[in-house]
Structure formats: C-alpha cells, structure tokens
C-alpha cells in the first residue's frame, strides 16, 4: 500500500501535504491535478504535515488534490544508451519529447527499451561477485560499457546463470545471481539508483596522483587539475567561464564527459547540441557527442529540477567511473544550484544564513564535491570522476557564500579576472590568484618527475614568480613613468609579458593553439624560461620593449604552428637569432 495524502497549502512550488501513513525524507510523490501528475520530493516532515517541492509549475493546484507517495527517492536509470543523450534535470529524454514546448507532467524514458545491444559475458557461472562487479560488457559507441552487479546488492552472490554472447535489450535478464541464502535475483542491463546517494562499490579512494590533461596551458602547466580532482571557476559575467568549460569539454583526455547545464542560457546549450555531434575528438577520431551526456536544466526550467540536475549528472558520472573509465563532470553553474536551494529554504521560512542562503549551504556543497575522486575498483582497475564547476558570484565579488563555501572543498581555483577579459587576454584565468593544491601533492610531483622532468614543479613556480614580479614592476612603471624607473623594471615587466602572451594566453578558436599537449607545454615552458634566465643589457627602455615585442610575435607564430613542423622550427631559428643578436 502506498502512502497517500491531500494538499493543504501552496506557495509557489512549495506544497504542504497531510498524509495518512509514514513517509521518508526525500521520498518522491506525485500530485494529481486533473489529468496530469506532478512530480515532487519530500523536503520536510512535521508530524503528519509534509512539505514537498514540486518539480513543475503549480499553477491551478488546489487544496484537496490527491498525492501518492512512491516509497523511493529520486532515481535515475543507469544502463547502455546514456551517452549522447540529452536529458533534463530529472533524466527525462528531451529528444523524444514531441512538442516544441515542455509539457507539464510529461515524463519520458531515459533509455531506449527496444534497442538491442551486443552483450559479451565477462564472468562465468559459479563465480562469486559483489555489487559493482562486472558481469559482462556491451559496446556503447566505441566505449566498453560494463554491465555490473546492481549497486544496491549487499554481500556476496554466486552467478547461477549468465547469458551467452548475443544481442539483448536493457530489460532482458542477462544474469541470475543467488545470495548466501540461496535466493535468486535476476539482473538486467539497466539498474536504478537514487541520485542523492553516492555510488560506492569500490575498494578504496586514494589521493589523486596523476594529471587530467585539458590542453589549456593556464590549467595544465600552471594550475593542473588531477584525475579525480576537483576545481572551480568563479568569475563575473562576460569573463569567458563558458568558453573555458566548452574548451575543456572538447579537449580533455577523458573517456566520458558529463555536462550539467544548470540554470544557464538555453542558447549556450543549443551550441553544444549543434557542435558536439559535428566535432571530432582528436584522440579517438570519434565524434565528441559519442562520449558525452548532457543534462540540461536551463534557467527558465523549474527551479527544483535545477537542484536535482547536478545530482543526476554526478550519479551518471559515478556509474561510468565504476566501469573503470575516466569521467569528467562539468557543471555550469553551481551558483544557480545554490540559488535553487535558497529559494526553497526561503519558502520554508527557515532562518537564513549569509545572503539569505540556507545555513547548511557549505556542507551541501562540500558533500557534493566529495563525490568526485579516483577510485580503485574491486578488480584493481581504476576509474575516476574529475569535477569542475563554475561559480557566478554576485557582482563579481568573490566574498559571497557560494564562492567561499566552494573554496573550502575544491582543490583547484581558477579565478577569472575582469581586467584580463577586458583587455582580451584569454583565457582570463588570473595567474596570481589562481591555485592548484595538487602541485603540492608529493604523489603528483612523482608523476611529473616520471612523465616530464624532476624539476617540473620548481619550473612552474619560477614562471609564476616571473608574472608576480612583472606585475609589481608594472605598477611602479605606471606610477613613475617609463623614464622614471630603472631598466630592470622594464625587463621584469616584459619577461612577465612573455610568459603571459606565450604560455598563459591561448586562442580557443585557433585550430592548433586551442589544444596544447603536455609535452608541448613542457617544451614551451622551457623555452620561455631559458629566455627569461638570460642576462640582457639594453641602453634604452624602448630597445627592451621592442626586443620582447618581437620575441612575443615570433613565439606566437610558433604557438599557431604544428609542433615540430618545418614552420615551427623556422620560427624557432628566427627566435634564436633574435636572442643571440642582443646578447
């Protein structure tokens, strides 16, 4: 028997319900309104009066409408077919909806139940398995999609029967498992999981120890994000947050990309819908869309579903991690999610925290970020969820609750600087304010030593130091005038400009410059440091400016040329000549 209730109060999308039997916190329910059913989630229980947030518009709802409780939390369907799908925040498939307008109460299936998948078993009958162990795999595009023992299965099971190689739909039984008491369970290729609960079923979660390459120099070289790491990008509007996220989505060396467009502009999502099916992933030669799932809850879609969307995205990311894949989760923007929390807290008349956000904002955010990470699976392989969120601070002021709460839990901080954006120095990642805690990890240093060179981290710090000293010099030049400062100030400033133009700035719209592999980044960093470490003697500051301007011009051409090509080498020769001439 399902618990039922009647609506007793309505304020916007917060509805109170009088119930006749037990309900659970976060339990799902449907409110019946004429011929539609509106999905809602329990967010507060007070005696027999229950507050639910409705995922749809509550227009026309009346006191006395019936409510049916489902006895489960908000869940998503996990199985082959998630990739290249476009979902809303509740995992409704947007592509299979017929109307141009979103219809209230229209819920579409997340996965295609008729599609047949070519299944290959991995275990054989008699094997002992536990939750998240691989039973078999299907090819989802080019990715091996593992069919796993459902995450909800506790303890050990014995495989009684496993389907032979062949094609099956997601609802066909592919295995029969028996538990220790001999009870039998049928397993299909699709399982359901509540989004607010982290998927476990791995052996351990070590500290991140290797880099997740993004091809963006200001990130990989200066503030690398680790595989399984977390980072966030705060910045005022118009600083290029979305451009950076899209660039990373296109280039990152991840197997699977989950993009959560959370309360942002619909036209930006349309850009992804349009571009990703056409763009080619340079590492696999396959279309980008084949490794991408888009969760799209734009700013005009119901607020409560916006809150759910980031959890839906995270759960899908964790699902692919359990297959031993590298997953990159991008959320744009987590501020919109926090605002959804604020709107609800406000309607429930909770005592507000800073800026009217709920007092537990900080713990909600850190709890969410903690779901990212690299894990060692039961079979010893690794999988990871790397999480990168954007934050849209009100008025561009970083002293606000969402930025501050996020700063406490995210390990990389990419501050976008308005001045850099105004002077078109893109990406506008501030070289001085931004940081990556992973640079300090001994595990990461070991990784760099092995992959690049022993003194990599100290080189990065040296380059960063040049920008810092350059900024100080620039401030002095501005106060005292070009003639009023010693030559050394000009030198310092122009060395920092060299680092800025050649390493930090990157043209996201240039076919070659947009993506720089780590090896090439190392080469350019060495080259720039070499130049900066030389002693120069100029008699007039104009000479200094002219010299560095010409270096910048030549090295920019290098950035635009294929690495190691004859053009690239030619520019490099020009560069050497130019430097030797001055020395």
């Amino acid at each position: 028997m399902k618990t039922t209730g009647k609506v007793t109060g309505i304020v916007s999308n917060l509805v109170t319900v009088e119930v006749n039997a037990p309900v659970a916190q976060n339990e799902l329910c449907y409110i019946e309104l004429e011929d539609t059913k509106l999905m809602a989630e329990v967010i507060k229980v007070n005696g027999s009066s229950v507050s639910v947030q409705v995922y749809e518009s509550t227009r026309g709802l009346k006191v006395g409408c019936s409510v049916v409780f489902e006895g489960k939390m908000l869940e998503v369907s996990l199985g082959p077919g998630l990739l290249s799908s476009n979902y809303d925040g509740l995992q409704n498939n947007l592509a299979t909806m017929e109307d141009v307008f979103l219809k209230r109460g229209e819920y579409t299936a997340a996965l295609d139940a008729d599609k047949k998948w070519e299944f290959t078993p991995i275990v054989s009958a008699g094997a002992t398995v536990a939750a998240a162990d691989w039973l078999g795999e299907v090819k989802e595009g080019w990715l091996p999609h593992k069919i796993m023992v459902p995450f909800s299965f506790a303890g050990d099971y014995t495989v009684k029967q496993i389907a032979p190689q062949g094609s099956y739909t997601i609802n066909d039984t592919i295995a029969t498992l028996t538990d220790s008491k001999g009870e039998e369970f049928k397993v299909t290729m699709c399982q359901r999981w509540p989004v607010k609960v982290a998927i476990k079923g791995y052996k351990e979660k070590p500290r991140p120890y290797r880099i997740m390459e993004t091809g963006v120099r200001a990130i990989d070289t200066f503030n690398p994000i680790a595989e399984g790491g977390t980072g966030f990008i705060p910045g005022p509007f118009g600083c290029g947050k979305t451009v950076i996220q899209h660039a990373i989505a296109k280039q990152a060396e991840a197997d699977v990309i989950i993009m959560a467009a959370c309360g942002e502009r619909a036209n930006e999502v349309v850009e992804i819908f349009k571009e990703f099916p056409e763009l080619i992933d340079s590492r696999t030669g396959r279309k980008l869309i084949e490794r991408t799932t888009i969760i799209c809850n734009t700013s005009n879609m119901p607020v409560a579903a916006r809150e759910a969307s980031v959890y839906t995205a995270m759960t899908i990311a964790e699902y692919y991690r359990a297959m031993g894949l590298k997953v990159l989760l991008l959320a744009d923007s987590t501020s919109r999610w926090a605002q959804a929390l604020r709107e609800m807290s406000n309607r429930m008349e909770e005592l507000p925290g800073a800026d009217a956000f709920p007092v537990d904002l900080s713990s909600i955010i850190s709890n969410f970020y903690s779901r990212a990470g690299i894990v060692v699976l039961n079979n010893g392989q690794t999988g990871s969820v790397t999480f990168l969120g954007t934050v849209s601070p009100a008025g561009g002021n970083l002293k606000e609750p969402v930025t501050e709460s996020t700063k406490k839990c995210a390990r990389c901080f990419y501050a976008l600087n308005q001045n850099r954006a105004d002077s078109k120095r893109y990406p506008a990642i501030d070289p001085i304010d931004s940081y990556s805690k992973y640079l300090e990890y001994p595990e990461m240093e070991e990784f760099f030593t092995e992959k690049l060179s022993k003194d990599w981290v100290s080189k990065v710090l040296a380059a960063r130091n040049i920008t810092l000293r350059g900024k100080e010099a620039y401030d002095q030049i501005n106060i005292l005038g070009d003639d009023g400062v010693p030559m050394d100030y000009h030198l310092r400033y122009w060395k920092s400009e060299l680092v800025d133009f050649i390493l930090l700035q990157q043209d996201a719209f240039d076919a070659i410059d947009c993506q720089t592999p780590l090896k090439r980044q190392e080469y350019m960093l060495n080259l720039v440091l070499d130049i900066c470490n030389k002693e120069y003697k100029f008699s007039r500051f104009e000479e200094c400016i002219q010299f560095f301007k010409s270096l910048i011009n030549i090295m920019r051409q290098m950035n635009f040329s294929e690495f190691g090509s004859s053009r690239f080498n030619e520019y490099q020769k020009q560069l050497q000549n130019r430097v030797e001439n001055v020395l």
Partner: protein
Amino acid sequence: MSSNIFQKIYTKLESITKATVTLKATGVSNDELAKVAGRLAQVVKIKGDLVTLQVFEGTEGIPTNAEVEFFGEPPALNVGEELSGRFLNAYGEPIDGGPKVEGIRRYIGGPSVNPFKRRQPSELIPTGIAGIDLNNTLVSGQKIPFFADPDQPYNQVMADVALRADVDKIILGGMGLSNDDYLFFRQKFEDAGALNKIICFVNTTEEPPVERLLIPDMALTAAEYFAVDKNEKVLVLLTDMTLYADALSIVSNRMDQIPSKDSMPGSLYSDLAKIYEKAVQLPDGGSITIIAVTTLNDGDITHAIPDNTGYITEGQLYLRKDTDTGKIIVDPFRSLSRLKQLVINKKTREDHSQVMNTGVRLFADAANAKTKLENGFDLSDYDMRCLEYAKEYSNKLLSIDVNIKIEEMLNTGWSLFRKYFKPEELGIKQELVDKYWK
C-alpha cells in the same frame, strides 16, 4: 476578464497588507485571478482554507467586508491578428479607445521551449547603429538589454532600433513608463507608419507598480502567438526592467519573504530568466528577440538587478556620453553581444571581425594615451594619432545618431585606419590589407 456567475462571492477579509489580502475560501486554485472590491488580484499563497491574494492596484481603501470573486483561471490574453496596432494595459484591455480584442484565449506565463527543439540563432538584425552592428552585432532570437543611466536616451535608441530592424512584429512592454515616454513611442511608431506591426502593453508611472508584473508575460504571450502560430519574426522591447524588479521586491517584501542582495527577492534570477529565456529561434522559422532596458544607478553594474541580468542575457549594450565629442555612444569596451560570432564574417563581409577588433583596440590605445596625458607623461607620435583617431571613430561610428549600412561602416573603418596609421601598426591579416587598404 470573464467571471463565472455560479462562483461564490466572499465578503470577509481576514487580513490586509499594502499589497495583499487574505480570506477564508475553498476550491481555489493556485495562480488564479480574482476580483477584490472590483480590483484584479491573483492567488499567491494557499494555506488550508486561508487564501492570500496579491492585489495589483494596491489595497488602499479596501474594507474588510469587500466582495471577493474568484475567476477560476490564471491571467490570460486574447491573441489573434487583431492584436496588431493595438495599445493595451497590463490586463490586456484596450487603452486606445478601440474594441475589446477577441481571439484565442491563452494563459500568460506559459511553459518554456524544449531546449533540444531550439535552433541556433543565425540571422543578423541590422540597426544602422555602428556601435551595435559593427561591434556588437545583434542576432534574431537573442536577448540583450541596454544598460544605461536614467538620463540617457535609451527609449529613443530602442525605438530607432525597433523601427529599423527587419521584423514582422514589434511588441512593446512598457513598465513604469512616464506618460511622456508612452506618448513618444506612440508618436514615433505612428510617424514611421509602422502601427500595423506594433502591439503595446503599457503600464505608466500613473498606474500601480504591482500591475507591471503582468506586462512582460502579456507581451511575450502575444509574441509567442506570432512566432509559434504564425512563424513570424517578433521583436519584443521591454522597458524598464529595473522597475519590474522593483515591483517584485515590493510584493516579496509584503509577503514577509527574506530578502537577499540589495533587498531583492531570492528568486530574482529565476524570475528574470523566465522572461528573458522566452527569446528563441524556433525550428519553423519564427523567432522572438528581446531588447530590454535596465536602468543603472550611477553606472553601478554590481547591483543585483543588472548583475543577475548580465548572467541571463546574451550580452549587454552600454550607453554613455563620450566626453571628447559630447555625443552618446555605445561603449565599445563594456558592451558585448555574445551571439555576434554567429553572424560576423558569415553573414557580413570577410573583413568584419578584423575591422571590429582593430577599431576597438585603437580606441583602447587612445584611452591609455589619454590617461598618460592626464598623468603628465609625454605622448609619443603614435599616442597623438590614436587620440585624433578616437575622436573621429567616436563621431563617425560609435555615436548613436549614425545610421548606415554595415558595408559602409567597414569602409569608414578602413578609411580611418588609413588616415591615421600604417598597415604594419595594425597587425591586420595581409590579404585583407591588400584588398581593402585603398
């Protein structure tokens, strides 16, 4: 607004605030309209048998024994071809002396377009103003506000833009419009002979502020009719969104909601997004483009209203006075059209992006030179030329009184570059220099 004769009439109010009344009533649905002592009101909260209504005209003089009558439906607008040329108030009732609008009844504030069904905007909207067409090109399906101080002629610029744009319908949503501005728009549309493609929803400063909350939804419901049902290109003008947001804060304040930044309601972002995201390029060719006005308080863009707006809209156009030429210009530094790259060089000449970037960069160099001058440092020859260039650039291109074709803007750009600079100072692609440096 029709009412049901079988509907029960209530005559006892439990409580009254400046904007809301509460009474005991049953069978009431959320969002539905009612009449309280002859004034329109809308259900905003139901708690058991207590129903709270937001009274659009305000509650001055409403007695506790006022008659309350529920309509059983949310606010709606009659849509149809006969909307063309009409001037209506916030409830969709005529204010031009014409007959009541018949047509299909549509509830306002309807659902959103499925993002997956949207098309990518790709059609340029020419305005004749180089500060817009050249530097911040508008695209149909875009949403963009003018950020302007109250003393700037934003309504005039907007009217010019609307009349020059190649669209099928222009829908004006005036919120807190001064009576003078209302008459200005009316006269301007009439003079242009464009009345047949114009629909106006107007709330003037003489009318109660809470009524304004209906204006954008009314305007956009009409827009959706023409864009979706008739596949037309619709341009919606919303002025002034700052006054709309102020009305939001009044209501939320009266309902004892906890304010967030700048005493705005915590839902401001969602409230504004619901309006702006109605801008769309539809799969069957129709489109809704929104040009809005957000007035600033002394240029402060960190205030909650412009700040939230900036995160929602696809760019912003800043108007400011250029102190060197005394003209109102579209500020090339702080203005931005996020969709411009969808049309630049694709729908315009191949040299567009280079002329645009070079022109703005030189204007920035001039600004630096000016700072240098003010700080008492010597100017180089290049600095001097930049300053001269900036004056002419501001006059001939940035000023809002410019009205020329895009090709002419590009040619003007080249002629200015040639007058003050050498090609090697500009770093423009050589092939373009060869072709256009004449």
